């Protein structure tokens, strides 16, 4: 056990994990976090707290993860390389771990050009692979990147992202392999809207045996309208959306009914990826629609969420 986080324990015990996602508030008021925690408690095993997602300023992922923890929900703190250099990242990780945060998702980060401060200086001192390697060094070698000793190492479960839908396809498998080499324990993928492509990627992943070395959680994004799908298809680079889903959503004009269809599609995608060998869980990430999470988890038949006592050693044949 590397971190002892709930997510790690469940995955190692062979359970199919469920993660949620929450964007921190664009305000100095944290009360919305507690409210949103109600959508997650008992429904997901851990919840991602985004780090200035799409380069729009929000409350820091460190503080919001801390608030989530206080509400009794396990956070996955996202950490990007866009806004912090290696010093700042390491100090934030120490702080976060001292507060009891046990999962960190290491990302390169969206470029500022897309956000609300496009004129800012891009930091990108490290990239995601180097960040993963640095966190692993801090945890396993008890050393800062500089080689200086850390008295109390940060015990974290290290995550990385993978995009099975970006180009060039072969590079996407190689990238995953590099993140595993660097020290990733779990991987969250970009949202699946193209099952054939995801299947193809998983086949390639299994062929290299990578699914045995890391826990792969498939991304699932429920959408409320055909417009959202169109937007992603046209304006979000690196996404693939199959026309089937667009047609299905377009066929429905009523707003409420469209939302139902969105839930139905998400549940379908979950049951499809669940069948695929090597998929260890799902990461449900509704954008600004966190309240739908419980219904999706329930309809996908993923309730109740398993609970493991904190100190029970995991019995497993899965050595990852």
């Amino acid at each position, binding site marked *: 056990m590397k971190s002892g986080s709930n997510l790690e324990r469940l995955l190692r015990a062979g359970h199919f994990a469920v993660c949620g996602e929450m964007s921190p508030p664009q305000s100095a008021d944290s009360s919305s976090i507690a409210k949103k925690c109600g959508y997650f408690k008992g429904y997901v095993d851990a919840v991602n707290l985004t780090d200035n997602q799409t380069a729009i300023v929000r409350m820091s992922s460190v503080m919001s993860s801390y608030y989530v923890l206080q509400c009794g929900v396990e956070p996955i703190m996202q950490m990007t390389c866009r806004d912090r250099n290696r010093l700042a990242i390491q100090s934030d990780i120490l702080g976060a771990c001292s507060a009891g945060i046990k999962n960190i998702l290491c990302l390169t980060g969206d*470029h500022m050009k897309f956000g609300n401060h496009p004129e800012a200086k891009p930091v990108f*001192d490290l990239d995601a*692979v180097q960040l993963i390697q*640095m966190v692993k060094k801090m945890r396993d070698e008890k050393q800062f990147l500089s080689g200086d000793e850390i008295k109390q190492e940060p015990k974290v479960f290290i995550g990385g992202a993978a995009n099975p839908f970006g180009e060039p396809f072969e590079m996407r498998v190689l990238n995953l392999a*590099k993140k595993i080499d660097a020290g990733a324990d779990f991987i969250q993928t970009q949202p699946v809207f193209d099952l054939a492509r995801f299947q193809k990627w998983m086949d390639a992943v299994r062929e290299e045996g990578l699914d045995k070395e890391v826990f792969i959680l498939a991304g699932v994004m429920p959408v409320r309208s055909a417009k959202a799908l169109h937007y992603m298809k046209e304006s979000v680079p*690196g996404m693939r959306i199959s026309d089937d889903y667009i047609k299905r959503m377009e066929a429905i004009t009523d707003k409420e009914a469209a939302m139902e269809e969105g839930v139905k599609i998400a549940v379908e995608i979950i049951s499809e990826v669940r069948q695929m060998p090597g998929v260890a869980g799902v990461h449900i990430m509704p954008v600004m629609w966190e309240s739908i999470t419980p219904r999706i988890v329930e309809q996908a038949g993923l309730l109740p969420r398993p609970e493991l006592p904190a100190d029970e050693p995991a019995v497993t044949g899965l050595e990852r």
Partner: protein
Amino acid sequence: MSKVSENFAKFCEKHPRLYACAVLAENAFKKPVFRCQDCGQCILSYTAFTCPMRCPKQMRNGPCGGTREDGRCEVYPERHCIWWLIYRRAKRMGRLKKLRRIQKPVDRRLQHTSAWLNVFAGKIDPPSWGKD
């Protein structure tokens, strides 16, 4: 690297004018040919002789998640994603396995120094010339 080249590098470092000439010579070649960004720790031999530092996110270990279907960069759609180019060239040149190597964080102190002399002086890893 050999003792001779190491001594040569040290000699250059002690003579600022000579060093400036070495940088000039390196840049005169690498800038037009590779559009080198002068990071001082060249990994061109690992990236199919395509400089990854032109990526707006300075990705040295592979593409970000945003490469478009037509191979364009997510940040600047008018350019190709540098990693899309690297991948294509590496495949053509039989250098795909070299992409698998994890590239260390950049030592920012080496910006605008001569990567060639840095190799001679043993400050950075030597290039890997042969094919996979």
